[in-house]
């Protein structure tokens, strides 16, 4: 009898331990992600929808900006510029699409042809950026550019150019990202407020730690912050500054702060009086106490800015800029010198509410300007770039990311500060800047380019005082202590990676 009981217990133990070994608890991680608009069931790769695909590790581009800000091979193993307008990209071997289709030159050409043919091209691309694509065998792609372009590899690190399997692209419809990427995670389901992803067991980049990821779309930053505190989410992206003191008091939560390539600036419409006078522009610069703004409104999270680029961007930052330290007396003197009495200078100060810190910063600036005799009429409304671009504004407080298109400031400098720039809100035109930019496009060595950018910064900030750069923003991410191997990406492209893990 006793023997039978022992046998029974032994058998049951064996069965249960076999069963639990056969199905260990799944490692599941939940991310609360910010979203202005929910991505549609149809995915426009040229729009900001794609950040949800790259952030979740579904879709990968040929080239990658790594977590230290360097350009590294991704789906392309190497690249070479064979002549002024031709590049050859060698593709990595061992990559396979999640639906089993082979990753080869033809697949890459199909994907890139799609992104070239959409009605509104992604940032960093014009209709002549790439003029033709051809295959050199199965493992290499030849790309012809319209004009000599040293930055083609940078442009192909843009997540808008990420590569999906050929069957994802159907004529007349948006591409389907379900099971058609190359990345560590496979998109299984998408609903109006969440995405569900599972591990890609055949990922070329190696072992993927997590089994499942839930990517929740939560537009409200305060709510996202709350979700990490309650455990509803393991990672909360883009936390508002107002929530940081609460999160930092919580011992189960880690707040990650990273200086972002994003600067808040007061853009002046230089084509209009009184901004045509550089003394007025410099007066405005001296009137603003950037340290106080960062210390109080931003609660110390951020850095006062001198020029557009942050201390993290050491490669091309001009750290020798003089800038404009807070000096209201000097501001008043400059205005007087330009012939304006207190109250003479009046203009509208525009800003928009979708970035929470902008309205209070604008209010503070309004008051600081009032203290030196400038009357600014504040208007807060949703941003309409078109009005701004058409010149229908006087000043605009804007949060501007300068590495959004390619991980190189050329796109930003050209768009914002060249005479014919597509985002030249200031209506600024200085031929020296245009000349330096043209030189930089011709330069082959990055160092040469970066030195030219430094000269441009000097002109824009110290000589012409085009834009009042107020502060550099900080990317704020909160995650529970259970999350392992999280690293914030400099361009915020990749959140969920193969290395990301969670303790049970």
């Amino acid at each position, binding site marked *: 009898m006793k023997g039978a009981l022992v046998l029974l217990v032994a058998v049951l133990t064996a069965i249960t331990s076999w069963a639990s070994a056969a199905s260990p608890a799944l490692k599941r991680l939940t991310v609360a992600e910010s979203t202005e608009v929910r991505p549609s069931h149809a995915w426009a790769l040229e729009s900001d929808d794609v950040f949800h695909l790259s952030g979740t590790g579904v879709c990968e581009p040929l080239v990658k900006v790594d977590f230290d800000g360097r350009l590294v091979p991704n789906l392309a193993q190497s690249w070479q510029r064979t002549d002024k307008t031709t590049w050859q990209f060698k593709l990595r071997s061992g990559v396979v699409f999640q639906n089993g289709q082979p990753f080869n030159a033809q697949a890459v050409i199909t994907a890139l042809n799609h992104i070239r043919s959409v009605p*509104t091209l992604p940032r960093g691309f014009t209709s002549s950026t790439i003029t033709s694509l051809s295959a050199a065998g199965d493992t290499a792609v030849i790309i012809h550019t319209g004009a000599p372009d040293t930055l083609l590899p940078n442009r192909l690190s843009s997540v808008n150019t990420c590569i999906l399997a050929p069957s994802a692209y159907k004529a007349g419809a948006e591409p389907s990202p379900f099971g058609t990427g190359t990345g560590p995670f496979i998109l299984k389901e998408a609903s109006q407020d969440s995405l569900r992803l599972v591990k890609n067991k055949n990922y070329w980049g190696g072992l993927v730690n997590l089994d499942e990821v839930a990517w929740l779309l939560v*537009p409200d930053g305060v709510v996202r912050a709350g979700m990490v505190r309650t455990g509803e989410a393991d990672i909360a992206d883009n936390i508002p500054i107002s929530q940081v003191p609460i999160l930092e008091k919580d011992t189960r939560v880690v707040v990650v702060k990273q200086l972002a390539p994003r600067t808040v600036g007061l853009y002046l419409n230089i084509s209009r009086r009184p901004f045509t006078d550089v003394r007025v522009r410099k007066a405005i610069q001296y009137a603003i106490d950037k340290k106080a703004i960062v210390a109080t409104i931003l609660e110390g999270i951020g850095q006062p800015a001198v020029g557009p680029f942050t201390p993290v961007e050491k490669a091309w930052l001009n750290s020798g800029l003089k800038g404009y330290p807070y000096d209201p007396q000097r501001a008043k003197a400059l205005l007087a010198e330009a012939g304006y009495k207190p109250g003479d200078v009046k203009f509208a100060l525009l800003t928009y509410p979708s970035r929470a810190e902008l309205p209070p910063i604008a209010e503070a600036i309004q008051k600081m300007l009032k203290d030196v005799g400038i009357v600014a009429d504040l208007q807060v409304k949703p941003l*309409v770039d078109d009005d701004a671009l058409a010149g229908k504004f006087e000043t605009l407080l804007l949060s501007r990311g300068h590495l959004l298109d390619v991980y190189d400031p050329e796109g930003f400098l050209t768009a914002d500060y060249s005479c014919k720039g597509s985002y030249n809100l200031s209506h600024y035109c200085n031929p020296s800047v245009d000349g330096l930019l043209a030189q930089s496009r011709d330069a082959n060595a990055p160092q040469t380019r970066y030195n030219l950018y430094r000269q441009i910064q000097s002109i824009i900030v110290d000589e012409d005082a085009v834009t009042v750069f107020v502060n550099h923003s900080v990317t704020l991410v909160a995650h529970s202590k259970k999350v392992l191997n999280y690293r914030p990406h400099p361009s915020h492209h990749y959140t969920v990676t193969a290395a990301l893990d969670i303790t049970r």
Partner: protein
Amino acid sequence: MAALLIRRLAFLPVLLVFVSLLVFFLPRLAGVDPTLAILHARVPERNPDPEVLDRIRAELGLDRPVPLRFLSWLERLARGDLGYSYVTREPVAGLLREGLAVTATLVGLCLALAVVVAVPLGVVAAIRPGKWLDNLIAIGSQVGVAVPEYWIALLLILLFAQRLGWLPSAGWRGPAYMVMPVLTLAFRPIAYFAWATRAAVIEAMRMDSFRAARARGLTRTRTIWVHALRNALIPVVTLVALWLAGMLGGSVIVEVIFGIPGIGLVLYNAVLATDLPLIQAGLVFLISLAVVINTLADLAYVALNPAIRLSRPQP
């Protein structure tokens, strides 16, 4: 009765066309250029490339004269083709349907709660008019009408989500997410329904049939609950129907605060993004729905009233 029905219903299509006209021209009156709106919606910082603008214009048929566009829009509406959102490029009809399903759940739960709470309160108030319970309910109903729903929403979130952590602060992912929004929205209907029930019950108590029942020996309380309430329910039910119509679009602030993907939030986001097809189709759809519900409720009220009027109320 049939004549009344026909007259009311005949007007409906005319009214709907009138509403469509207003809605169609509103953005144009406001000086919104659809092409720029699309461009702005698709790529936040875009190239003001004239070639791109022309392509978009052609793609959407925006280069045709205005009256033609209105008529073709109307024709497509009638067929059920509500166009495509500028922002997400999904069919508008689908977006509206999804939103409506969510809002209908929210509003349905809210009105059910309101009826369950308010009707008994109204009856109790009617049983002893003028006494402290009646006065309490009266004051409660004034308070309910005057309370700002956005303030209540914030206070509930502050207490139950942020301080206590019992409920999630926003979203729509399960029953726990429904508690606070339903409570917030229920304040005003409870206040109005309780007051209306009280008035209707008092009215019903003045009827011959009520006295007849009392004369038959039933207790006052029982007669009220059984008899008067039955008659009083008719105006209350029509009131509920009217509130349903109003709340389908009127829940927008609550949906915004709690992040509920209902039709109010869909339209709010559409307005912020100047997503014209969605705004226009959505408004026409909601207003039409409200008009139809209102009309049917009114007709039902009139139709059912004669049953009450059979016994004259005492002077």
